């Protein structure tokens, strides 16, 4: 069939939009930050996300990817204590910050949240769990700092950016409530 036949389509992905594939020119930087309490340096191109740097450069595979564009929360880590999405954070922007991942939760022995998730059966496939744990840890720390006890509804709202497909959230909320009780006003973090 000739190319000018109206039923013939010549297709190159993105070509119609004039998009040129770019794989050259890497602006690689050495980024230094605190990772789970330790100073680290990692060489990352400017277009790499923190998620990519953690998983594929630093070997911290606990942080998961479920959508890579902000929709699911699987990649949640803490930066300077706050829960953020590592898939929408450029690695270079972590320079000088305090990054915490699930690997840094409860070093030495499980964090009360991890124990509570385990007790309650809050992890089924466990793929959303690292992100859930990081959101929950940030939320509980913040509430404690403010001297507040969170209601189940507030906990659900705090986990509103973390999708779970297995549990129906029932046991996740149970677990965070249990951990909150255990953490109480005490000094554990």
């Amino acid at each position, binding site marked *: 069939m000739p190319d000018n036949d109206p039923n013939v389509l010549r297709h190159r992905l993105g070509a*119609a939009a004039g998009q040129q*594939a*770019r794989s050259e020119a890497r602006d690689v930087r050495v980024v230094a930050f605190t990772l789970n309490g330790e100073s680290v340096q990692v060489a990352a191109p400017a277009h790499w996300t923190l998620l990519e740097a953690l998983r594929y450069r630093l070997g911290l595979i606990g942080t998961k990817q479920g959508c890579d564009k902000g929709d699911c*929360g699987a990649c949640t880590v803490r930066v300077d204590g706050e829960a953020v999405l590592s898939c929408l*954070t450029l690695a270079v922007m972590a320079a000088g910050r305090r990054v915490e991942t699930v690997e840094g939760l409860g070093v030495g022995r499980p964090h009360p949240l991890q124990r509570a998730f385990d007790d309650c059966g809050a992890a089924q496939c466990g793929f959303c769990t690292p992100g859930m744990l990081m959101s929950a840890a940030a*939320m509980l720390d913040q509430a404690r700092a403010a001297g507040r006890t969170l209601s189940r509804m507030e906990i659900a709202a705090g986990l*509103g*950016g973390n999708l779970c497909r297995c549990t129906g959230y029932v046991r996740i909320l149970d677990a965070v409530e249990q951990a909150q009780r255990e953490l109480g006003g005490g000094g554990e973090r």
Partner: protein
Amino acid sequence: MLRLRPLTLHRPTSLAEAIALKSEYGTDATYFAGGTDLLPNLKLLQVDAQVLIALADVAELRGIEAVDDDGGSTLHLGAATRLSTLAADPVVRSLVPSLADAAGRVASPQVRNMATLGGNLCLDTRCRYINQSQLFRDALGGCLKSHGKECHVVPGGQGCVAALSTDTAPLLIALGAELDLLGPDGPRSVPLGRFYSTDGLAHTDLRPGEIVVRVRVPVPAASTHVRNRKWAVRKSIDFPLVAVAVRLDLDPAAPVLTGGRIVVGVLGPRPRQLPLDRFAGASIDEALALQLGDLAFDRSRPLPNVPYDADYRRERLRVEVRRAVRDIAASLEG
């Protein structure tokens, strides 16, 4: 993974430096605040940027301050203020609680920890035909906002009518907020109500290189009542499918209307403003709720741009306006 394409990043520490960088790189460069709007769009190859100019280190963009001036007080909000900060800030909560609420309803907790107010006002317009993968847009044959020749929302339409899907703009317009901008040609201010255009491809009044530095929000008088309402399918994560702010200015002496406005978002690129002057003298009751709901319904035509049934969004808008008015009425009684 949705890998970003290789790019260069700059981290200026002052507005002057940022603007100079932008002048140097021109259209290849984009300002980058929280990145929660920009990075997904870059990852989907919806937009391209070879150079990102991060605003995170620019101290001049930070800070929340209540400034007293002759008429009353004004809230000065740095454009880099994060939405979670805005939602929790005691000053904001006490002076303009509706703004704290609106900021607290954006996206998800993690996104709010990253997203900035400036980004929330400058975010790109959205449409079911554009916020998609490259494969989808290729299959579609593109549209005016990508590489195509027609709009699929308004077939035969000449312009892009993608929706401004921000949660804070309608409210801030209703509050009479102004933006302080700084660009290569110096500073200027624009009322937010005049900041947006009807062109979904270039929907803000920002001139090349201009940065939103600060948002100034007049603190409403005690007799002014403002409510912001959002509807989305899910109670978290989702962009608004209906976003509307209702402002009722009351006579300080008696609970009757003297003026006000309804500002409707998520229509096209520009929020619609509906002045309420002709309702002056009305009391704040169910009849007014119904009337204002009908007004919003009659004067707004949600389009099939964002991914939800447009007719329902219009119905829903009517109800949300009613509920805003009812809520104000209840607060007057309470």
